[in-house]
């Protein structure tokens, strides 16, 4: 698929999900569908973070990225789950691990 078409589809999906309740006000689904809507983004974020930090080269290995993971977890707790705090302390952990183990 052409990159441009792919980006247009990503834009349509993203904007559609943002606009759906603003175009016409309605209730968020409840029950099983509602619970899936709640937990899927969290599961996806964690899966993306895990593959990026535990297996940056496509296989699980001990790399400085694990220092980033540890720093990110510490940062999340230390800064009351702030996005910026998680990233900054995670990046510090990554650089510390990189200096120590190369």
């Amino acid at each position, binding site marked *: 698929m052409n990159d*441009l078409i792919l980006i247009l589809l990503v834009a349509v999906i993203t904007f559609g999900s943002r606009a759906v309740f*603003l175009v016409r006000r309605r209730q968020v689904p409840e029950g099983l569908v509602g*619970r899936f809507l709640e937990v899927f983004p969290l*599961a996806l974020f964690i899966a993306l973070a895990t593959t990026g930090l535990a297996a940056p080269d496509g296989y*699980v290995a001990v790399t*400085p990225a694990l220092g980033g993971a540890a720093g990110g977890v510490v940062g999340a707790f230390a800064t009351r789950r702030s996005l910026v705090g998680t990233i900054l302390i995670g*990046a510090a952990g990554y650089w510390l691990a990189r200096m120590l183990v190369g």
Partner: protein
Amino acid sequence: MFGIAFGVLAIRAGLAPWVTVLSSFIVVSGAAQFAMVGLLAAGPGPVLIATTGLALRHLPMSAKLADLIGERSLPTRLSLAWVLTDETFGLTLRASQAGVPDLAAYKAAADLMLYSAWVGGTAVGAFVGRTIDPAALGIDVLFALLFLGLAAPLLRTRRDWIVVGLAVAAALLAIAVLPEAWQVTGAATVAAFIGTAIRE
């Protein structure tokens, strides 16, 4: 900063600079765009599944924002939807708790600042990115840390913690047994299905 990082990673993944800037111009979602770049080599299927999954979190945000801004014209509501990001939603929610009277105007201002920084940063990264080595600067790790940072505020209940544990375990298993294209979406789907069955 994240716009620059996205621009650098996107052109390294093979996107043309102008396509990279266009993506920030029309998608305006760091999570979706970083996931798209990370999964680009895996093909359009995994990209679209991941994008749809990430987009699910906008549904409750959209419903809440509709309540916060009240009756507005359709163009106003659509323009506020355009930049409905985790950051601007969080700011608007805080503003409502602080008693800011015109939340639509407040969010529009926040949107404008975020949008210009995101598109401008992407342009810088896309057009000077060829001279930057992302691995040397650790930019590729920032991508993973962004998702960790986005997950952190979503942790509210015991079920959320179980879903995190399941997603980590499923992702590690998926790395070992699934083709790269389906590792992330496969792991997230399994973790979310099990998590859905857990009642608070």
